[in-house]
């Protein structure tokens, strides 16, 4: 533990977290829209400030976190523990949130909790860093929160990602939810969203 861990919260923890949550709420209720959220002053590399902002907003001691092979480092574990109280778990099936520094590290979604027919809310939220939320292959999204159809083009997603996403959506109401993040913005993919490409 050192001073840098302590000094990397939001500049205004209460109101920045509120604004970041409203960004997450706007993004989740309107899938495909790109929303800018407040970022913390700094974050321990390779945890990006956007991922750190989502962690500071949603994590606490009730939300076990799983980190991908790039992120699972002692300074990041300490940062999350000190600033949020969240425990890092090594078993993906016990995680409430999972953080990814690279979308190509995404394993089979079914290794994470997807909820049960009785409790579909007991499912993991996957938070994935991408290089940019624009410039990738265009994909059309449909579902609740989208007026008719919205075209998105997040970059850096692995081949076959959208097929896997549609398999997840086909199991509605059980499934995982996803938040994609680039350097300062987020885009949300709740399980209700179906992609066509």
């Amino acid at each position, binding site marked *: 533990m050192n001073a840098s861990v302590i000094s990397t919260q939001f500049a205004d923890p209460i109101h920045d977290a509120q604004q970041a*949550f409203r960004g997450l709420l706007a993004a989740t209720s*309107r899938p495909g829209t790109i929303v800018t959220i407040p970022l913390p002053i700094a974050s321990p590399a390779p945890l990006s400030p956007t991922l750190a902002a989502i962690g500071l907003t949603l994590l606490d001691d009730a939300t076990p976190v799983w980190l991908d092979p790039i992120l699972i480092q002692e300074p990041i574990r300490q940062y999350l523990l000190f600033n949020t109280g969240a425990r890092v778990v090594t078993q993906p099936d016990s995680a409430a949130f999972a953080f990814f520094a690279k979308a190509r590290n995404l394993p089979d979604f079914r290794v994470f909790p997807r909820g049960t027919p009785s409790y579909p809310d007991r499912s993991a939220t996957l938070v994935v860093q991408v290089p940019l939320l624009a410039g990738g292959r265009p994909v059309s999204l449909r579902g*609740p929160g989208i007026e008719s159809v919205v075209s998105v083009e997040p970059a850096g997603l692995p081949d076959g990602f959208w097929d896997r996403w549609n398999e997840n959506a086909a199991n509605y*109401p059980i499934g995982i939810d996803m938040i994609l993040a680039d350097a300062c913005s987020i885009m949300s993919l709740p399980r209700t969203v179906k992609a066509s490409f």
Partner: protein
Amino acid sequence: MLDDLALNGEAEEYSYGFLDEQTKRMIRRAILKAVSIPGYQVPFGDREIPLPPGWGTGGIQVTASIIGKTDCLKVIDQGADDTTNAVSIRRFFARVARVNTTESTGEATIVQSRHRIPERPLQDDQILVMQVPQPEPLRRLVTSEVETRKLHAFARYGLMQVRLYEDIARYGNIVMSHDYPVRVHDRYLASPSPVPKFDNPKLHRSRALTIFGAGRERRIYAIPPFTDVRSIDFDDHPFERQKWQSCCARCGAEDSYLDEMLLDDAGNTQFVCSDTSYCNDRLSEGASR
């Protein structure tokens, strides 16, 4: 009620929005899951609020978890901004969250409501928070939570169709006038909260996000924008809104939900808009009978 607490956010460094940060995070996570699974009731940990359960504690906790300094809050009770419950909740948030409040539907970023959905269609940047006494639409038919959870898991909602059919068999039409059940996104059966069924069609593909909070029953559910919300009915008995023979006695509106007002001891009555903001807006725009 709130004066007794002598709360002063700025001076006493009280938690912003009354709830502590840990509680807000828990409720915020529940809200995000609720938006991801439209119509599904997400359990949450209800906290004590300086208001009795049944007076809007669920709605207050949702509002407290989403509200920020730049928000403008409107609170209505039965369509009116000036009833006791609405006034005290508005003053509560003006004090603990230091937000601007309004009585105009168009100006608000968050509208907390009990028993009505505003007549003026809500826009993209607005959030409607509904106070819900009983979030489970099947509760009057099945008392067991274990059983209703199974019915939701398997989407077995025949019981509710039978309930509506019994109305038709007995009275010739569906007499349920408020809290009329809806299917959200063709999946979950949900209660629109005790709004008159006149308001049900406003939920269908609404431009605004709607979040429902039930404090005593510890449930949060949501309807995202542009989501299909179908009031359940039968092919030969389609869903119908309430209709009135007269128009509003103040503004002459023929398209709004009307309350019947008793005028004198002789039993004379007149009808006026239940949504006071809508009625006042129409009057200021020059409408009259």
